[in-house]
């Protein structure tokens, strides 16, 4: 038997936001590490495109449509989920906005998807005992709001800081069932989210030079960290926010 503390063989893992970016890459990577993967997102076509890329050597992958900001969807999803050994909650959005334009409406839209949605899903998965004893939950947060405070990122950063806070409380409370809760705090990662046009490609290329390791992250960088946190290799790790930023916040 090959020695591999990072294997996910035999585990069932939920990935939200699986239709693009970090979620898509995490779902594919987890299946390649042997996990049975349950993917969810809003858009059927794009979700299906991810499903087609899951490792066919593992049987039983599932795809479930749901909008994480709709309470009925979240409740239905939790009802349909199999028992889970792990979850990677990636569904989220970004917003680049100077604070003086950060109205309650803007904050609400950001907190709905980046904070309330994963918090409610996590709550229900725990309460309904969808998360098995010893399960590992990975929240995708950000260096924004806790480790980095770039102008224009306040509304977004605050939502991710709130998520990092709840992550620690959940880690304390859910330890009662040996459920681990950690977050990954990436710097800028090359996903459709940052290439939405608010910031020009030239500005992004210039910004990437400010990273000590010389580049933005790739979704696979984050997926590999998620594999570690889901695997038994991190069995003694909970309540930790794993900074993954090419040295940017140093």
């Amino acid at each position, binding site marked *: 038997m090959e020695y591999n503390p990072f294997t996910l063989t035999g585990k069932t893992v939920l990935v939200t936001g699986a239709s693009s970016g970090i979620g898509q890459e995490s779902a594919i990577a987890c299946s390649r590490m042997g996990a049975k993967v349950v993917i969810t997102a809003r858009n059927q076509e794009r979700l299906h495109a991810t499903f087609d890329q899951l490792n066919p050597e593992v049987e039983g992958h599932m795809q479930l449509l749901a909008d994480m900001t709709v309470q009925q969807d979240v409740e239905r999803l939790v009802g349909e989920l199999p028992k889970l050994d792990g979850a990677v909650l990636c569904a989220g959005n970004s917003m*680049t*906005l*100077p604070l*003086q*334009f950060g*109205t309650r409406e803007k904050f609400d839209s950001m907190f709905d998807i980046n904070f309330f949605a994963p918090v409610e899903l996590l709550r229900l998965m725990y309460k309904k005992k969808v998360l098995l004893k010893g399960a590992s939950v990975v929240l995708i947060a950000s260096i924004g709001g806790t480790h980095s405070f770039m*102008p*224009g990122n306040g509304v977004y950063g605050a939502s991710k800081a709130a998520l990092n806070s709840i992550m620690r409380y959940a880690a304390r409370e859910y330890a009662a069932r040996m459920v681990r809760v950690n977050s990954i705090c990436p710097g800028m990662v090359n996903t459709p989210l940052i290439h939405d*046009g*608010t*910031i*020009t490609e*030239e*500005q992004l290329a210039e910004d990437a030079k400010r990273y000590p390791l010389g580049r933005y992250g790739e979704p696979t960088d984050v997926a590999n960290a998620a594999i570690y946190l889901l695997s038994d290799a991190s069995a003694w790790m909970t309540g930790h926010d794993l900074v993954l930023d090419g040295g940017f916040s140093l």
Partner: protein
Amino acid sequence: MSIDQFIENFTDLFDETDPDTINETTSFKDLEEWSSLLALSVIAMIDEEYDVEFRGEDIRNSNTVEDLYNIVKSRVE
């Protein structure tokens, strides 16, 4: 919408620049106070005041305040 109102909204975003020095022919990127944060503020102001989605490349493709106004105007309808 009027260009005068647009110029006023635009000028409001500046703290150091004398408002009287900004008009429709001003090459705004040459203003000393111009910055990436101000660019974000322009995008946010246009969203707030005109409900128009403005992008970084729209700013890149504009030279004068009037250029900005014309793009916004073309998307208001």
